C-alpha cells in the first residue's frame, strides 16, 4: 500500500527533495546552481504529473487526493513557480541570500500543492501554514522598513485568520469524528456546526486567496516585497487557496448555504478590487487591487460547484489564464518601474515590451482573442449554468470597470512621447515575457489546443 501511495506522490516527493538540494546549494553559496536545481526539479515534477493526470484516487487513507483537479492544479502551479523563479533571478540575482529566496519559493509551492490536493482538514491547515511561513520571509527579504512592516502585517493577518480557521475546523471534527472532507456529508441537518466550519474555512483560505474583507495585507505586502515575490504570491498561493476551497466544498451539500455566502463575497471582492484599483498611482498597488478583483472572479467557479459541470474546467482554465497574464504584467512592471508615470511613453520607447503589456492587460480585462477572455467566458458560463445569473451580471458589469482600470495603464504608454530609457531585460526575464505572452496569445487563438 505504502509503495502505491508514494508512487502517486512522486511529484511532491521530487519537489521536496529539490528544495533540500537548493538549501544545500545555498549553503555552498552557489545560487546559480540552486536555481538550476530548482528549475530542473520543477520541470521534473511537472512531467511526473502527466502520467497521473487522469487518476481519480486518494492516498494515505483519503487525506490526499490525486484527482483531475489536483493534477491540473499542479500543471498550473509548477510552471508558474518556475516563471517566478526566473523573475526572482532577474530582479535580485547576485545579491546576498538570493539562494534562500529560491529555496523558500519551492518550499511554499510544496505547500501550495498540498492545498490543491487536500482531502483532509488538517492538510489544509498544514498547507496554509507551510505557504504562510515561507511567504512572510519572502516578503521581508528586502530588509527595509516597508518590507518589514508589510511582512509583519501579513504575519498578523495570517495568525488571526489561521487561528480562526483552526478553531472553527475543530467543530467539524467534533461533529463528524473525522478530519476527512469526504465524511462531511453526515453533518447535513446540523446547520450550526456546518456554519462554524464553513466560516473557518472561508476565513483561512479567503485570507490566502485575498478575498474582501481579508485582503488588507495584500497591497502592503505586494508593495513591500520584491516585485517578483509579489507576482509569485499573487499567482501561486492565491490559486492554491481556491483549489483548496474547491476540494473542501465539493463534498458539502449546496443547501449548507455556502454558495450564497461565497457569491456575496465574490460580488464585493470584484467591485471593491476594481474600484480601489481605479485610484492607485503605484503600479504594484494597482496590480495588487486588480488581483483582488480577479480573486472575486475565481470565486464564480467555486460558487458553481456541484451545480454545474463547467465549474472545475472553468476554475482550471481561469487559473492558467490568470497565471500567464498576471505574471506577465508583473514582469513588465519589473522592467518599466513601480510607478504609473514610469509607464508614460513606455510603449513607444519599447514597442515589444509595450505590446506584451497591452496583451496582458487586455487579457486581464477579458478581450478576445486572448486567454483571459476564454477564462472569464468559462466562469460566467459556469455561474449562469449553476443558476447564479445575478453574479454573472455583476461580473460582467465589473469587467467594464476593469476596462477602465487597465486602459488607465495602456493610454499613457502610448499617449505621451517616448522617453527612451535604457531598460535592463536580462535573459531570464525575457524568457518569462516570451512564455507568458505566448500562452496569453496562443491559448487565446487556439484555446482548443490547451483545453481538452
Amino acid at each position, binding site marked *: 500500500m505504502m509503495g502505491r501511495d508514494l508512487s502517486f506522490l512522486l511529484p511532491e516527493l521530487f519537489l521536496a527533495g529539490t528544495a533540500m538540494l537548493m538549501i544545500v546549494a545555498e549553503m555552498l553559496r552557489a545560487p546559480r546552481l540552486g536555481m538550476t536545481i530548482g528549475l530542473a526539479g520543477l520541470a521534473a515534477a511537472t512531467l511526473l504529473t502527466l502520467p497521473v493526470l487522469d487518476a481519480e484516487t486518494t492516498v494515505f487513507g483519503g487525506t490526499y487526493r490525486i484527482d483531475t483537479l489536483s493534477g491540473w492544479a499542479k500543471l498550473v502551479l509548477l510552471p508558474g513557480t518556475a516563471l517566478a523563479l526566473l523573475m526572482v533571478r532577474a530582479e535580485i540575482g547576485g545579491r546576498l541570500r538570493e539562494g534562500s529566496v529560491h529555496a523558500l519559493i519551492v518550499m511554499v509551492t510544496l505547500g501550495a500543492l498540498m492545498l490543491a490536493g487536500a482531502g483532509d482538514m488538517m492538510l489544509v491547515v498544514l498547507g496554509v501554514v507551510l505557504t504562510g511561513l515561507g511567504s512572510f520571509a519572502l516578503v521581508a527579504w528586502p530588509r527595509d522598513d516597508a518590507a518589514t512592516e508589510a511582512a509583519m502585517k501579513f504575519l498578523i*493577518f495570517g495568525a488571526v485568520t489561521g487561528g480562526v480557521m483552526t478553531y472553527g475546523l475543530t467543530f467539524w471534527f467534533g461533529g463528524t469524528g473525522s478530519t476527512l472532507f469526504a465524511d462531511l456529508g453526515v453533518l447535513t441537518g446540523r446547520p*450550526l456546526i456546518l456554519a462554524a466550519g464553513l*466560516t473557518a474555512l472561508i476565513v483561512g483560505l479567503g485570507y490566502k486567496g485575498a478575498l474582501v474583507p481579508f485582503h488588507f495585507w495584500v497591497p502592503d505586502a505586494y508593495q513591500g516585497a520584491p516585485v517578483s515575490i509579489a507576482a509569485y504570491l499573487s499567482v501561486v498561493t492565491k490559486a492554491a487557496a481556491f483549489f483548496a476551497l474547491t476540494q473542501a466544498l465539493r463534498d458539502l451539500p449546496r443547501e449548507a448555504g455556502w454558495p450564497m455566502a461565497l457569491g456575496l463575497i465574490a460580488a464585493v471582492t470584484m467591485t471593491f478590487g476594481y474600484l*480601489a484599483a481605479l*485610484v492607485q498611482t503605484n503600479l504594484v498597488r494597482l496590480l495588487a487591487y486588480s488581483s483582488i478583483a480577479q480573486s472575486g472572479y475565481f470565486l464564480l467557479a467555486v460558487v458553481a460547484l456541484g451545480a454545474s459541470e463547467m465549474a472545475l474546467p472553468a476554475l482550471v482554465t481561469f487559473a492558467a489564464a490568470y497565471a500567464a497574464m498576471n505574471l506577465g504584467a508583473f514582469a513588465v512592471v519589473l522592467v518599466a518601474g513601480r510607478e504609473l508615470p514610469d509607464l508614460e511613453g513606455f510603449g513607444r520607447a519599447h514597442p515589444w515590451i509595450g505590446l506584451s503589456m497591452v496583451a496582458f492587460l487586455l487579457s486581464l480585462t477579458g*478581450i478576445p482573442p486572448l486567454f483571459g477572455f476564454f477564462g472569464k467566458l468559462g466562469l460566467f458560463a459556469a455561474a449562469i449554468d449553476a443558476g447564479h445569473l445575478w453574479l454573472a451580471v455583476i461580473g460582467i458589469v465589473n469587467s467594464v470597470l476593469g476596462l477602465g482600470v487597465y486602459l488607465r495603464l495602456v493610454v499613457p504608454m502610448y499617449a505621451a512621447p517616448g522617453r527612451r530609457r535604457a531598460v535592463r531585460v536580462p535573459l531570464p526575464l525575457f524568457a518569462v515575457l516570451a512564455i507568458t505572452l505566448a500562452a496569453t496569445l496562443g491559448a487565446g487563438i487556439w484555446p482548443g489546443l490547451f*483545453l481538452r
Partner: protein
Amino acid sequence: MIWLALTLMAPFGAGIAILALRRQPAALALAGSALGLAGALGLFAATARGDRIAAALPFLPGFPARLEASPLTATFALMVATVAVAVLIHAAGYMARDPGRVRFFGIMTLFVTAMELLVLSGDWITLLGAWEMIGFASWLLIGFWHHRPAVPEAALRAFLYTRSADLGLYLAVFLLIGATGSPEIAAASALTGPPALIAGLLLLLAAAGKSAQPPFQEWLMRAMASPTPVSALLHSATLVAAGAILLIRAAPMLPDAVLVAVGIVGGFGAVITGLMALAERDLKRLLAASTASQHGFMLITIAAGAPVAAVLHLVAHAAIKSALFLGAGIFQHDRNATTLDALAGAGRARPGVFAGFALAALALAGLPPMAAWFSKEAILAATWNSPLAPWLVPLALAGALLSGAYMGRALRVLWSGPAERAQTPVPFMAVGLWGLVILAVTLGPAFGPLEAMLGATIEDIPPFLPVLGLAVAAGGAALGWLLPPRRLLGPFLGPAERGFGIASALETLSARSALTLAGAVARLETEILAATLAAGRTGTRVAAATCRIDRDRIDGAIFALTRGLRASGQGLRRLQSGLIHRELALSMIGILLLIGVLLIAPLSF
C-alpha cells in the same frame, strides 16, 4: 470554402503584413481588401446559386467555431468588403502624409477582418468574440490621433458605452446556449416562451448600444474625433451596423413583445436623433446623429416583422453614409474644420465633390430613383402591413421628414457662403467618394432581386403610400434647404442641441456614480475607517454580549483575539502599521456577517 477563407484571410494577412513589414501600408491594405472583396463576391455568387457554405473550425472543445454563408450573411459580407475597398482607396489619399500610416492601415484591415468574422459567424461564441474585437479595434481607431485633446476621452467613452451594452449580448448568448443546448445561431429561431423574451430584450440592449440608439447615442457623436475614413467605415457597414445586423439575424426568434420594444427604441431613436441632427452645428456630428437616426429606421422595420427590408436599408445606408463621410472628409481637408460655420461654401469651392455629396444626401433623404428611396418604400410597406402600424407608420414618416430636413440643411450650408475654387486635386479621395456615390445612386434596382434572394415577398400597399413617402422626403429636403433650424424646431432647438439631456443623465447615473464610489473607496483607509471603527466597537460589544452568554465559545475567542491584536497593534506603531487593528476589526465584522449569511442562507432552501 475557398471564398470563405479568402474573405477572411486576405484582409487579415494584409493587416499582419503591414504591421510586420512596416512599408507600403496603403498598397498592401488595398490589395488585401480587394482580395477580400473578390472572396465576398464569390460567396455571394455561390449563395445566390443556392449553395450553403459552412465551415466548422477546431476551437473550444465541443464548440467548433462555425462560419456560414447564407444569402443573408453573404450579402452583409459583400457590403462590408465593398465599403472597405472604397474607404481604403479614399484613405490612401487622406492619410498620405500621416506619420502613423502603418498603424492606421494595419488596424483598419484587422478591423475589417473582425467585422467579416462577425457577419459570417455561425455560432454565438464566435459572434461574441468578433463583437468584442470590433469594439476593441474601434477603440484603437477612434483614438488614432490620441495626442490631440479630447480624443482619448472620446475613444474611451465609445469603448465603455458599447461595452456596457455588451453586457446584454453576453447574457443573451449564455441564455440562448443554455436554453437551446446548441451554440449555433440558427438553432435559436426555435426558441419560444420566457427565454426568448429575455434573450430578445438583452440582444436589443446590445444592439442599441452598438447602433447608438438613445440613451447610448453620445459615444457616436463624440467618436467624430477620429480620422474621417474611420468614421466612414464605422458608421456605414461595420461598428454601428453590427447592432442592426445582430437583430436582423436574431429576428426569427424575437417574440412579439420584444418586437414592440424594438419598435419603441427604434422609432423614438429615429425621431430623437433626427431632431439632434437638425440642430447640430458640426457636419460630422450631424452625419453621426443621422447614422443613429437611420439605424432607428432599421429597428422600426425589424419591429414591423420585415427584417429583409431592414437589410435593404442597411445596404443602402452603408453606401450612402460612407459616401457622405468621404465627401465631408474632403471638405474637412480643405478647410481644416468640421463646424458648419467654417464649412459654409466649401461645396461651391469643389463642385465635383459637392455633386457627389449632394447625390448621396438626396439619396439619404429618400428621393427617387436612388437606393434609399427603394428601401424606404419597403420600410413604409412593411410598417403599413404590420400589426403595429398605427404608431410605427407615423414614426417612420416623421423620421423620413427629418432625414430630408437635415440633409437639405447641410447642402444649403455647404453651397451658400464664401467660395474660392480649391486648387489641390484629390484623386484618391474623389475616386473613393464617387465609387460609393455611384453605388448609392444605382443600387436601387438591384433590391428587387436581392429581396427575392433573401426570401421576402413584396407586399401589397395602397398606392398613396409611396406618394406620401416621396412627398415627405422631398418636403423635408425643401424645408431643410429653405428654413433655418431655429424656425423649424422652434422650442425644441435648445433641447435638441443638448441631446435632450439624455447623455448627461446617463453620465450622472453611471459614470459619475462609479467615480464617486471609487473616490469613496480611496478614502476608505483614511476617513471612513474612523466611522467603521465605531461600527467595529459595536461589533465587539455584540461579541462581548454574546461572550457573557456563552463564555468560552467562538465569539469569545474572536473577542479576545480582537482585543489582543489591538494591543499588539499599539505596540506596532513604531513600525508605522497603526491601521492594522482597524483593518482587523473590519475583517472581524466581515466574519460576523459571514456567519450571519451562512446561518440564514440554508433557511431559503
